[in-house]
């Protein structure tokens, strides 16, 4: 039996976090749930605890990368076999968890992809352009096909937990972390995953932020590609 930890990074998500936790408990009662409360100013920590999750509270907001890494550091320290990361806003469905976990024995990181097969997910044109751009870029750099590099729904095995506890990209980590892992000789795989429309709150992405995101992540990906030469461990 694998020891599984589900990590949920949360910043001001008091309204959705209890439902996410309940969803996971319904589908994966054996998994431990860890909410990384990234300096929220609402009742995220309390409602998560009441819903039965373990909560780590960062004293101030360190951003998604720093928050995620805290979860992986915890997973490493407590000897989990698998760490799953899931968004706190309810966009990822816990019903997909068994499918991700069924593949994590065969490789080091399983990514839940919205685009591997046709799912009900709909996105704006601009978002689609960005997602396609990064999938092409990462596929080119890693010479492996990826369809959804920005997905934050992932299951990591012990090797990846160790690597992430040591180094995890900051700010916008999803895309760069794929390149980092392939360069560290991890095997990565995508499986189909549904993504729901946002239940509460608003996306924090604005046009200006998107432009900054594109440039910053592209630079990070290229830097990761040259930092870790292929063929060397």
């Amino acid at each position: 039996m694998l020891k599984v930890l589900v990590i949920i990074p949360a910043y001001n998500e008091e309204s959705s976090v209890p439902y996410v936790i309940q969803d996971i408990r319904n589908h994966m009662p054996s998994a431990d749930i860890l909410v990384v409360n990234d300096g929220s100013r609402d009742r995220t920590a309390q409602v998560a605890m009441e819903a039965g999750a373990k909560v780590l509270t960062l004293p101030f907001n360190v951003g998604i990368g720093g928050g995620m890494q805290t979860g992986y550091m915890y997973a490493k320290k407590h000897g989990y076999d698998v760490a799953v990361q899931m968004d706190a806003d309810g966009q990822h469905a816990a019903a997909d968890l068994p499918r991700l976990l069924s593949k994590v024995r065969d490789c080091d990181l399983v990514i839940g992809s919205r685009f591997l097969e046709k799912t009900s997910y709909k996105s704006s044109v601009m978002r689609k352009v960005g997602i396609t751009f990064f999938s092409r870029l990462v596929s080119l750099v890693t010479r492996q096909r990826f369809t959804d590099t920005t997905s934050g729904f992932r299951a990591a095995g012990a090797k990846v937990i160790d690597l992430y506890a040591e180094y995890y990209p900051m700010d916008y980590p999803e895309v760069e972390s794929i390149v980092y892992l392939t360069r560290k000789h991890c095997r990565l795989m995508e499986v189909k995953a549904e993504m729901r429309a946002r239940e509460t709150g608003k996306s924090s992405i604005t046009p200006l932020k998107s432009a900054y995101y594109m440039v910053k992540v592209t630079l990070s990906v290229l830097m990761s590609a040259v930092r870790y030469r292929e063929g060397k461990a």
Partner: protein
Amino acid sequence: MNVYILSVMFSIVFLVMIIELVRRRRLKEQYSLLWILMGFTLLIISVNVQGVERLASFLQIEYAPALLFLFGLLFCFVLILHLTLVITKLSAQVLRLTQEIAIMKGEKASHNEHIH
């Protein structure tokens, strides 16, 4: 009064300031070295007017004091880069500390729960 005298005066005041800051432990010795080096360089080139003018004509700079500004500017770039390197390292250390504290606090809370 010309720019050379002004810059000699400035260098001397500057060097005294640096030494005073180190003495009061307001500035680390490690970081003060760069500033002391810069103060002395400025002093030497300010005193040595002929040297500056010769170097300026060698570099085809018509207005010799412009060389002083050039040196100052280049030094500023190097120093700012140095500072951003220090900040990068500091922010990585602060992040690690924040994460370790969050994990420790979380463990302490669940430990207390078990006792009660």
